[in-house]
């Protein structure tokens, strides 16, 4: 898939803005129903806990991930929401990103995107000289 098409997919999905978002999504793509404590999840994906917490919120807010309602329980059940409106685009992106080269290409595309305004916590640094990509509404091929 060309960088242009990856950029288009990211525009359609909108919510992904940093590598941790992508890697968490990839983790849940492989483990669509995971019952874990967040520290362990952070170890699995290899990011700091605050960053993972931020990305989890992003994915849940975007409707890509569901979390068990009992927030007081030390472990949470995370379920990838395959039926979300973004599901088709997310699947296309993850099929690309599950290979090493594809993941690197998506990360590169993420770096070139303008920063998303988040409610708080960690925010990606803007990449100098990045050109905004005009979103298209067609479903791209994987």
């Amino acid at each position: 898939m060309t960088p242009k098409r990856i950029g288009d997919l990211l525009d359609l999905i909108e919510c992904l803005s940093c590598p941790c978002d992508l890697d968490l999504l990839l983790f849940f793509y492989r483990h669509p129903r995971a019952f874990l404590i967040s520290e362990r999840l952070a170890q699995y994906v290899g990011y700091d806990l605050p960053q993972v917490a931020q990305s989890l919120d992003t994915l849940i807010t975007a409707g890509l991930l569901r979390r068990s309602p009992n927030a007081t329980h030390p472990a949470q059940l995370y379920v990838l929401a395959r039926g979300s409106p973004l599901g088709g685009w997310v699947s296309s992106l993850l099929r690309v990103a599950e290979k090493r080269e594809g993941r690197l290409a998506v990360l590169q595309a993420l770096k070139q995107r303008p920063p998303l305004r988040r409610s708080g916590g960690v925010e990606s640094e803007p990449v100098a000289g990045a050109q905004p990509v005009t979103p298209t509404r067609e479903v791209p091929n994987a």
Partner: protein
Amino acid sequence: MPDPDLVKTGLKGLDEILFGGIPRGNIVLVTGTAGTGKTTLGVEFVYRGARQFNEPGVIVLFEVASDKLIRDAALFGWDLGELERDGRLKLIFTTRQLFQQELQQADSPLLAEAAEIGARRLFVDGLVRLPEATGGDSRDAFHLLAEGLHRENLTAMLALESTFADPAAARAPEEFVADTIVRLSIEPVQRAVLRSLEVVKSRGHEYALGRHSFRIVNGQGLEVYRRVQAPRSLERERGAAFDPTSRVATGIPGLDGLVNGGYFVASTTLVVGISGAGKSVMALQFIAEGARRGEKSLMVTLDEPPAQVLRNAHSIGIDLQSAIDKGLVHLWYEPPQEFEIDRHFAQIEAIVEDFRPRRAVIDSLSTYGSSLGAAERSFRDFFHAIVALMKEHQVTAVYNHENPEMLGMSSMMGEFKVSSLVDNIILMNWVELGDTFRHALTVAKMRAMPTSRTTHECEITNGQGMKVLPRPIRAALPVVPFAGYFGLISRAPERRSTVGPEVP
């Protein structure tokens, strides 16, 4: 005692060994080293439950990713993704510590997930001995886990890893707590390997003891073959025919007269002789005679592939292909390399039960001996089992056996100690007269029938097959009484020149 509520595993051959299935609610421990098939067994248990028995299930994974499990299951034709979408299966990735903790909590989200789909079966993949995970007493920790599973009324299968370096794992403390233990192993046989499965214990029901063979078959899953020695139904033991009137024609001109009109129905006949003595020709004529009478016959060939058997039959005027096409003959070939005797027997058993032959030929018994080891108990056990199978189904069976001695026989069966299991023995010999080896046939044993044990000349003619030649000189020779010889049991009797005065 009421019949237990048994959970059918749905795995081919396993429920037969478990005498119907696993008592509902049992905690089943599946032990074995890496690569023995624990995951396949557990996943198939849950898959079959959801697919065939309307029992939703949960698979708990600690190390394997769900997508890989789904991919691997697809090789067996199991669509786990479809079951998930239909709400009949959940794959949950977690850690061992969490799993252990959650089972001790009544409001566990993990258990709520199982309850949401009404799960009746659970498979936990990759349990290790619990002290490694909890730092506590292994037996006690496993007991807590088992109690949690009992509370949920799940029939749970837990794959417990044992290592090559830790043979003591086979007696893990968890085994004392579990209700059912299934031990999987891989053992080297020559340069091949054989998978085996043993139900070590199972509370609440009976099961077949011993190590049974199994295979992991692409597109199918596990196929378990009950060990050949395991007793079958009592009917099989009682199956020997008691029919003193019916005879099964041999198909060899001149032979029926020597065996009182034919073999008994469901009798076992051994034809012994060196290679080339005419055993396979006799077998083909026996099968052809059945086809001529409209009787179904099974021919198991281990030494020659079907094309060669068909050619051989054609050379003695038998159109075996035509009989096969008419459904009168089932020709089954299995090359003897890397023989798995339990599986082989299960296949013969299935053919006999489905095809229902009246006659059978096994060519040859000595090939089993060379694969299993003639002196081994397994060979005798196999032969005993196949004889019992044929008798139960009233199949008149002929077994060829190659004796290595070219001229004469010092022993009928050599190191194959099975002659006591057979009803009839026919010896095929070469006799060297002048510059020619001529075929000789002796009926050495006919159980429950008289036999003269005289040696007859045979002839095999191209396009016609074998026939036993008449013995016109027999009447001309006087029968000399034992008293006319000395050294009768010394293997070299000599005839007295004259019979002396009668001794009172």
